[in-house]
């Protein structure tokens, strides 16, 4: 009985934020929605990289390449020049294309590991960037290509067509894409957690902790290493499609090594091997620079964009803060935001409600035991 109750509360713990996220487009303006959209796209990509680098322990610096395959795959498949497929089909094929790209790399991924795999994947980013710049007819070269809007059964994820106003709120591109992002992110969250808690997830964690032990327990080492790469690439492809739709234009310079490093930072800041952690890290890394740029004039020591002079611009400032955050987290919470949250929860639970500073409201304390039962490998 209490087990069922706690499970229900655990579900509620997910349902409530989801409802909140659904309501946000009615209250937030386009700037905030765009931050949310980029965060959701980044979270999808980060969850994918988390599977590969966090759970399976394979360092990949090539995530930007697979994001690019997804983004450009969609643009080319749905656009002109290109086959001009229906956009929804193009999006699906772009995800599969990214998976196939990961599969093509799997002979390498199945054999090389650790820092060597990192360097091998580094080559992918440079190769990809070069192709994006030179294959003009497909990628549009340096200037990139504009992204055809997604269309699902006559509904377009753009400013109009059909015009839509809900509860007095005009639904433009950001509002519509927000819900698309939310659906894709939920699917990612659901599937990635299923994977990690199921048989494949345990095999991947075993690979990371000891390949020898994994193999004598019956795990086909090379196959699982490659599979981790393919699955991670598919999530990256999905993130790429969503990013392309949000940017409405894809350019080669976005998909550089720095992007790969950003994704690594997300999963480290969030906490390796955890889906919730990867999400938190993705939001942190994505939102921070955008917020700092927006509120630059209110921050000390940060100049408003374009004012010049000797002071630090908002982009650099956010870079510094972001670097400092990584160092602080590595020093004080090596298991990332996820570990920090878990330990805080454990501490709150241990403390008797009567003693100490004002305890958190009782509904949250009752919800926590349910949450604490979920473990993340």
């Amino acid at each position, binding site marked *: 009985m209490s087990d069922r109750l706690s499970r229900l509360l655990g579900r509620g713990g997910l349902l409530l934020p989801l409802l909140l996220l659904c309501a946000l487009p009615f209250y937030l303006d386009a700037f905030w929605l765009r931050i949310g959209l980029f965060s959701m796209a980044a979270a999808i990509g980060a969850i994918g990289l988390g599977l590969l680098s966090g759970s399976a322990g394979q360092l990949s610096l090539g995530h930007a390449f697979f994001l690019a395959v997804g983004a450009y795959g969609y643009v080319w498949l749905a656009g002109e020049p290109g086959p001009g497929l229906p956009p929804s089909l193009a999006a699906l094929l772009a995800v599969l294309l990214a998976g196939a790209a990961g599969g093509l790399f799997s002979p390498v991924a199945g054999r090389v590991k650790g820092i060597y795999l990192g360097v091998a994947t580094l080559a992918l980013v440079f190769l990809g960037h070069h192709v994006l710049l030179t294959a003009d007819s497909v990628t549009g070269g340096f200037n990139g290509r504009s992204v055809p809007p997604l269309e699902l059964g006559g509904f377009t994820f753009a400013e109009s067509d059909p015009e839509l106003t809900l509860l007095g709120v005009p639904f433009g591109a950001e509002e519509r894409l927000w819900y698309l992002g939310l659906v894709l992110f939920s699917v990612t969250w*659901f*599937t*990635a957690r*299923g*994977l990690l*808690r*199921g*048989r*494949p*997830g*345990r*095999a991947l*964690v*075993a690979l*990371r*902790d*000891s390949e*020898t*032990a*994994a*193999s*004598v*327990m*019956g*795990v*086909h*080492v090379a196959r699982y290493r490659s*599979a981790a790469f393919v*699955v991670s690439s598919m999530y990256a492809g999905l993130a790429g499609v969503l990013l392309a739709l949000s940017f409405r234009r894809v350019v080669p310079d976005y998909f550089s090594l720095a992007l790969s490093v950003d994704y690594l930072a997300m999963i480290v800041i969030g906490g390796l*091997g955890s889906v919730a952690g990867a999400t938190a890290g993705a939001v942190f890394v994505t939102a921070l620079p955008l917020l700092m740029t927006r509120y630059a004039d209110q921050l000390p020591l940060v100049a408003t964009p374009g004012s010049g002079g000797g002071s630090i611009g908002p982009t650099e400032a956010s870079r510094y803060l972001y670097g400092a955050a990584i160092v602080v987290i590595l020093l004080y919470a090596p298991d990332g935001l996820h570990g920090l949250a878990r330990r805080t929860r454990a501490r709150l639970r241990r403390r008797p409600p009567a003693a100490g500073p004002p305890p958190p409201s009782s509904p949250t304390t009752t919800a926590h035991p349910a949450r604490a039962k979920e*473990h993340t*490998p």
Partner: protein
Amino acid sequence: MAPAALEVRGVTVRFAGLVALDDVSFTVTPGSVHAVIGPNGAGKSTCFNVLSGLYRPAAGTVRLGDAELTRLAPHRIAALGVARTFQNIVTTQGTVADNLMLGRHALSRAGFAASALRLPRAVREQRAHLARAREIAGLVGLAPHFDSPVALLSYGDRKRVELARALCLEPRVLLLDEPVAGMNAAERARMTEVVREVRAELGLSVVLVEHDMGLVMRLADEVTVLDFGRAIAHGTPDEVRRDPEVLRAYLGTTTEDAA
């Protein structure tokens, strides 16, 4: 699966000129406990690594019933029902349940797609295997720790997690590499009891590498003694204990008073 004899025939392993195993042969009778003993560096762990497929022998064969193990990859050997533990504990992150469920890997089917979509088939399979894993945890006395993180367990308990994980493979042959190394007397006695019980209950063959002669003498039906990679003696524990070659290998002398 029906019991089958594990036959080791003329296995030789060389590491860059060093002969780690030299023409070693022995047969593990189905359902028996077969101990492999010998001084440090005699080739006991090498022997285990050949049996579980981690090393390929330069010569010789290992057969389990009709199946030849010598050329198979470790995961294929595991699927045939050969499970092992390690001398130094090798567990993975997570709870005892996670580790035991890894032991069920070869027996379950759910792949990436089925697990990601949480298809009813995958969920059912996972539930069934979890129930069996819980049973096995009970068998080795780990039931109270089933949902605890392995990292928080005592040394002796972690050793038993390894044993339980190997048992989760439902093995026909269980390879135990120093199951009581580093344990205190109480933990040792408990482990001996556990091994005896699981053997009786599950009817599997056990191959045991161990330095603790007390354990070997109490548990083993047959003993093979290795020294510098060669099998120098075979027999029951009593026979082996009196073998002059064995005394020489262990004590470096042939004088009778050393016994």
